[in-house]
């Protein structure tokens, strides 16, 4: 049964996943070329000194790409389900509705995790000759934090699609906007220590509330 749900989600999202992977890897290469250019111009020690003094991160510009991709992925996965109420087709399959909904969300989160992990592997390989292990771990922490916020964005987008009342959609859209304020935080390393647990709790809450909405879509708390 799980195989069936994953198969359907894969068919829907395979092209999107491919170009997302290309964009992420392309962006990582662009970042690599930019850093190499900066090092050539400013010299290695000065470039890293500048990064330390500004308490800033050289990959800051590519961070918003993660939540953006998660949002697009949510749209690609759930828009076809809501057009013509096709979600009923998925939910009437002979399996527990919660299993179906958890599997659909699980597929989305797993696909995004794989995508982001691949990007990080490429990042780590490209920059291994330039940055120290401490810098790499610090970068990993920031990436993980943004991944978690991306997951939250993905779940919020799904919620907006499956919430059948305009009021709920409005509340969710405002929540999504508030949550996106993370993109405007100056990404200083020490901020992310406290943001990671917050983001993790947010993802958990959204995961269960999304499942609740999906469950009620089927059982008729909302009149179709």
């Amino acid at each position, binding site marked *: *049964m799980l*195989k*069936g749900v994953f*198969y*359907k989600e894969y*068919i*829907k999202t395979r092209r999107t996943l491919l170009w997302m992977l290309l964009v992420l890897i392309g962006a990582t290469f662009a970042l690599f070329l930019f850093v190499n250019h900066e090092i050539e111009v400013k010299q290695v020690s000065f470039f890293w000194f500048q990064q330390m003094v500004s308490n800033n991160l050289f990959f800051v510009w590519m961070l918003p790409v993660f939540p953006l991709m998660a949002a697009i992925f949510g749209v690609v996965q759930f828009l*076809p389900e809501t057009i*013509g*109420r*096709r979600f*009923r*087709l998925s939910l*009437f*399959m*002979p*399996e*527990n509705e919660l299993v179906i909904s958890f599997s659909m969300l699980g597929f989305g989160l797993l696909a995004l995790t794989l995508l982001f992990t691949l990007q990080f592997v490429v990042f780590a390989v490209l920059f291994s000759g330039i940055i120290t292990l401490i810098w790499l771990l610090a970068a990993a922490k920031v990436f993980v934090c943004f991944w978690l916020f991306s997951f939250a964005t993905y779940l919020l987008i799904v919620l907006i699609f499956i919430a059948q009342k305009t009021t709920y959609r409005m509340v969710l859209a405002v929540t999504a906007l508030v949550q996106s304020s993370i993109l405007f935080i100056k990404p200083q390393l020490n901020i992310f220590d406290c943001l990671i647990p917050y983001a993790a709790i947010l993802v958990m809450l959204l995961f269960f509330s999304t499942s609740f909405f999906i469950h009620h879509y*089927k*059982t*008729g*708390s909302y*009149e*179709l």
Partner: protein
Amino acid sequence: MAVIDVHNLSHAYNKKPVLKNVCFSVEKGRILGIIGKNGAGKSTTINVLNGFLFPNSGSVKVFGENSNELTADTRRRIGVLFEGHLLHNYMTLKEVANYTKSFFPQWDDETYNKLTLRLKLLDKQKISTLSCGQRSQVALALLLAQRAELLILDDFSMGLDPGYRRLFVETLKSYVQYHNTTVLITSHIIQDLEYLVDDILLLNKGEALFNGTLTSFMQSIARYKVLLVEPQVVNPEVLWFANDVFQVENELFILSRLALNELLGAFAALNIQVTQIKSIPMSLEDAFIGLTGKF
């Protein structure tokens, strides 16, 4: 035990009642057609049966289980055709079959291939590129290949031309007769149902106006041709016994619950002189119009 057992089903949208104490049941191997005008409560009944709507009151059981708490095993015994032949449009024919197959262990590849091949459709063809008629055949193929014991079809004729409608009905009819499948079906094209159903549930403004066999439904009303002695315009409102009246010169075509001899007496009582009254063949659609009116 009945396959579907509905008792005192009532439902309202924003306090506006759409179903009022509806009762019916479907025995194994029977084909029940639900007919009614727009807004009569047909789709609401189907949504309740599928478990997509929680009724305000009443009990709705499918294979002995509450319709909104159907287990996966029970749902495996039910095939549903959603209104408008709803399918996952982004899939190809092969993909949609593989996807559906993974949920139904008793899946029958032969039935699916037979129905899709006769339309000369390719496995790689996307559902979104199919015509409405072709999509209806794919939806039917998916439904029949599931080998379900109960089929629920919501407005199967929607958007279909007469050819595809006939193909759909014939395929369905031969399948359910061979496999002794139970069917609950709704359609706005009532003549299709006449060929298909054993029983009729007539819904009118949320109430069950008739619930019985097709034969008894057809006997509940009759169509007459009344020849007037002289051309005169008859006010339909005075014909209290006529459910529907249509006049062409000195001929009256009426639908009435009265028997032929009772009708003669009724015309005599109204001082309308008639030369001849004869019963004429009537379709299910005529009977439907006769019982519910044109608007």
